[in-house]
């Protein structure tokens, strides 16, 4: 009787405790973040649908990251082209495993509505693509951690470097490409290596 009650209690405890216990264990994220992960940055963003997310939420899947501003007339459309070109160069089984994130350098003009408009105009795939904005003080920090240089000009234009950064599933920068308007074979190879390692 006592034994049975204990067993029942144990079972009960297990069932009740399970939901609380599972996420932490599952998350594997219980594992410490590597020292050189950009996910140490405590940063909230909003995507093109107005959905808030935390930068570190991206942990778990490799990310191809760039920064841009949508009013940019010249190179920024090319950044999207280049990211798309890179994604299409991957084997079909791999291209769905890579997320593509573009964060705006111009949070004032790139509202979620504006980002959604660009998202639609460029026919981006919501399964893998995210256009995001964050608050102004965060923009410089994100650029700094990614090694992206930018300078806001008096006329509202922004001069910026056009690096594409490959983050592994733990947010470490594992490859960087400065090529725009053409496919960077080294970057594609790095993506395939990173996906294979996960």
């Amino acid at each position, binding site marked *: 009787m006592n034994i049975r009650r204990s067993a029942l209690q144990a079972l009960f405890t297990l069932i009740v405790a399970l939901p609380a216990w599972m996420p932490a264990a599952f998350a594997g994220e219980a594992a410490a973040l590597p020292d050189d992960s950009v996910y140490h940055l405590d940063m909230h963003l909003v995507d093109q649908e107005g959905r808030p997310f935390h930068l570190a939420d991206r942990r778990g899947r490799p990310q191809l990251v760039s920064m841009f501003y949508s009013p*940019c007339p*010249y190179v920024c459309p090319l950044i999207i082209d280049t990211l798309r070109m890179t994604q299409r160069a991957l084997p079909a089984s791999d291209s769905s495993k890579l997320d593509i994130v573009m964060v705006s350098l111009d949070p004032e003009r790139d509202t979620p509505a504006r980002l959604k408009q660009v998202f639609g105009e460029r026919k981006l795939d919501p399964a893998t693509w995210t256009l995001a904005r964050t608050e102004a003080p965060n923009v410089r920090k994100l650029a700094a951690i990614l090694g992206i240089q930018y*300078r806001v000009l008096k006329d509202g*234009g922004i001069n910026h470097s056009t690096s594409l950064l490959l983050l592994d599933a733990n947010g470490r920068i594992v490859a960087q490409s*400065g*090529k725009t308007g053409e496919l960077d074979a080294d970057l594609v190879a790095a993506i395939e290596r990173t996906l294979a390692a996960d």
Partner: protein
Amino acid sequence: MMFRISLLLLTVGVANAADYVNLPGGRFASVLPADATGADVDVAPFAMRSEPVTNAEFLAFVQSHPQWQRGRVASVFAEPRYLMHWQSAQKLGSDVLPDQPVTQVSWFAAQAFCESEGARLPLWNEWEFAAAADATRADARNDPLWREQILAWYAQPAGKTLATVGGPANFYGMRDLHGLVWEWVDDFNALLVASDSRDQNDPDRLKFCGAGALNLRDRDNYAVLMRVAMLSSLKAADTTNSTGFRCARAATPSSQGQLP
């Protein structure tokens, strides 16, 4: 750093190091023009610490913010040399003076310190605006003698012991902008982004997006241009033994500092 700076100046009338001084801002001829047409920049009124942040102040910060202690901070925010001249994570040691400007701090650490007192790093144009003054003039940059004096400081050999903060005040009441340490600015990684990105025939040149090329102005102002070059060469987690910082924030009527 090759250009370790030493201070030859008297330590007179040292203000409380955490004093913020109001600066008026205004239209300003930066060495970096505001756009491709070479326009002046408009600097909004702001307040800035009159002196660089000291070792003692930074020690107090890491004691109350342990995540910024040497050995605990993530390497993505500060390289291994971060604060390595201190005896330990929470002790300056006998070779490090409390009143020396703190150095070997990364941009992220400097930014975090400033945020902890409700401030931020100054923008480059704010720093440049404050540093254009000499003791009696708001903008002494065209004075060849003044330029030479600053360059002479920069030419001091590296390896000399860093002086303590509290040099003579300039026109605005700011101290140690020249002659002591290099200083982080908020937009340190924005200064030399200047290339015409529209040359689509040469993909390697498509590095930058936005307006056309920006050219440096005032090429004779080597002292300031050296700062631009030095800051541009750094990454945000880098530290050097001659780079410190001071903080800035919006000008407030309650700020201690008064304009002369």
